[in-house]
């Protein structure tokens, strides 16, 4: 029974990673850049929910909506101010270092406003959860909500990408920006839309992450952000179902190794997986092989 509980916890954590990884993988697929600040968008989302809920005496629904809107704006603004000028720069390092700068900037703004002390975040899910087998197997409400939300997001995103014009434009832009421009697609606007979607998902992920692990600090988003990138690479970067699979695998591995091996080595094991994947199959589980042309 306890194994089952850990497995479900792993699924829940994995679902959160999957939602974050979706943001990474979409942005990487289209803009070909690693948005290092994505993890910090999560933290920003959490602080917004925290502040709004405190101001409205515990009404977290409004908080989530405000957080999604503001995070979307933040993502689009960051893309416009910091990343767009560097598109087509001579070195790919330029945009990566800028993204690191944005990540640092967000962390330090949060540090100035809220201080370094850890805030306790009250769960946005008030439901107690389910209990099976005479209370031997308890599943918390937030766990169920997390898994359901991530599945819904996955399905909606898949439909959006494959069935709408904007989604098709994204696919085209990720295949070949030049050809997409010739077909009349506004590539800049498509990339901005991708950032908007990714950042709004970060806000959702933030709400779920802080509900499951209720401690909020300026560095809350950094580690989950990096692990979600590992998940995106594991599943095959650019692939939406891949991000989901990668996230779930990573979450389960992390929880199980924390329980059965060592809590200190869990992170090392997670990163070890990244190294092994990149050595054995650098394109990830569902990734496509891209030939390099001279």
């Amino acid at each position: 029974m306890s194994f089952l509980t850990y497995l479900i916890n792993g699924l829940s954590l994995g679902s959160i990673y999957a939602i974050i990884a979706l943001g990474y993988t979409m942005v990487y697929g289209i803009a070909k850049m690693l948005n290092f600040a994505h993890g910090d968008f999560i933290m920003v989302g959490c602080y917004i929910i925290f502040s709004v809920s405190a101001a409205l005496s515990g009404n977290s629904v409004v908080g989530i909506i405000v957080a999604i809107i503001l995070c979307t704006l933040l993502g689009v603004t960051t893309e416009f101010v910091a990343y767009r000028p560097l598109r087509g720069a001579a070195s790919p390092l330029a945009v990566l270092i800028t993204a690191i700068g944005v990540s640092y900037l967000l962390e330090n703004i949060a540090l100035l406003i809220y201080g370094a002390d850890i805030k306790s975040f009250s769960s946005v899910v008030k439901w107690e959860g389910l209990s099976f087998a005479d209370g031997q197997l308890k599943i918390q409400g937030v766990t169920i909500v997390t898994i359901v939300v991530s599945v819904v997001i996955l399905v909606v995103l898949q439909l959006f990408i494959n069935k709408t014009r904007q989604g098709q434009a994204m696919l085209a832009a990720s295949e070949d920006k030049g050809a997409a421009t010739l077909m009349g697609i506004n590539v800049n606007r498509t990339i901005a839309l991708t950032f908007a979607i990714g950042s709004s998902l970060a806000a959702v992920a933030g709400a779920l992450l802080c509900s499951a692990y209720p401690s909020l600090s300026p560095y809350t988003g950094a580690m989950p952000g990096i692990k979600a990138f590992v998940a995106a690479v594991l599943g095959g970067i650019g692939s939406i179902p891949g991000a989901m699979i990668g996230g779930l695998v990573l979450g389960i591995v992390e929880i199980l190794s924390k329980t059965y091996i060592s809590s200190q080595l869990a992170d090392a094991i997670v990163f070890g997986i990244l190294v092994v994947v990149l050595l054995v199959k650098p394109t990830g589980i569902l990734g496509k092989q891209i030939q390099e042309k001279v």
Partner: protein
Amino acid sequence: MKKQTKNNLITYAIVIAAYIILEILMLTGNLSSHMKGLLVPMTYYAIIAVALNLCVGILGELSIGHCGFMCIGAFTSAFFSRATSESLPAAPRFIIALLIGIASAALFGFLIGIPVLRLKGDYLAIVTLAFGEIIKNVINAFYVGIDAKGLHFSMKSAMELNMDGGDTIVNGAMGITGTPHDANFTIGIVLLLISLFVVQNLVNSRDGRAIMAIRDNYIAAEATGINVTSYKMMAFTISAAIAGAAGVLFSHNITTLTASSQYFGYNASIMILVYVVLGGIGNIRGSVIAACILYLLPELLRGFSTYRMLIYSIVLIVMMIVNWSPKVIEWRKRTFGRIGAGRRKAA
């Protein structure tokens, strides 16, 4: 004298001049004890900035796990010094510890380089970050003790070492306590000069030109017969070894060495990246100056330290956009004419 030789000599002269000025200030009693405590950290940050610039500026691969190599150098050398603190006199002990620290950091650089250097760009950056975190986490769960029967290892707890009496040297997350204070400012400056000598001579050698050719266009470099993998490995290993030397200074300057995120996490690595970027990517002298100024400034201006990281991050973003954005470069060329176009392109 060749222009490059002159350029190198200027760098050494700056370091030596700074050393002499600070030593005079120290001898005449013009330096507060707080300031004195900052001198050794200043040298090891300058050394690791040089190491990272070799990797980012000369090799052209972004590493955000360089503090991991520093961590390896720090722990292996501290382990040796701590284990032999009673049986060896200070001078040979520190020299051997230094060599051990450098050698083990180089070994790890080599081993990690084999998988990492097969990757490029973002993937490489994230894998170096992963390795940095792995090193930190593993050391935090590592226990080593010494007793009459020899060495004991454990990954669980100090109790698992099964020692009779003896001495627990590496105590998991509590790290190594009681490393002798063998490092001082003079040693730091000497090590900085040696690292500068190694890196600057490498850059101006045939090997260095091959490494920079790989950075600028690796397909073209490969086509001209440069062995891309071995040159990349060479630069990466040397960079790791120098970072290890910085780690040796680090561990021999503090009493309790722990693999904490503050010193060895990826945030610390990014801090060093800030030094490198602000000093000029590919500009070795710039890294040294930037590391020293950026390290000392916030420590000296106490009120400034709250806003330090905020300002650094904004400067980092602005610097990258001003130096790299195609549109800004074009605008600069148009506005400033030959001045903008004639500027030496940094990396």
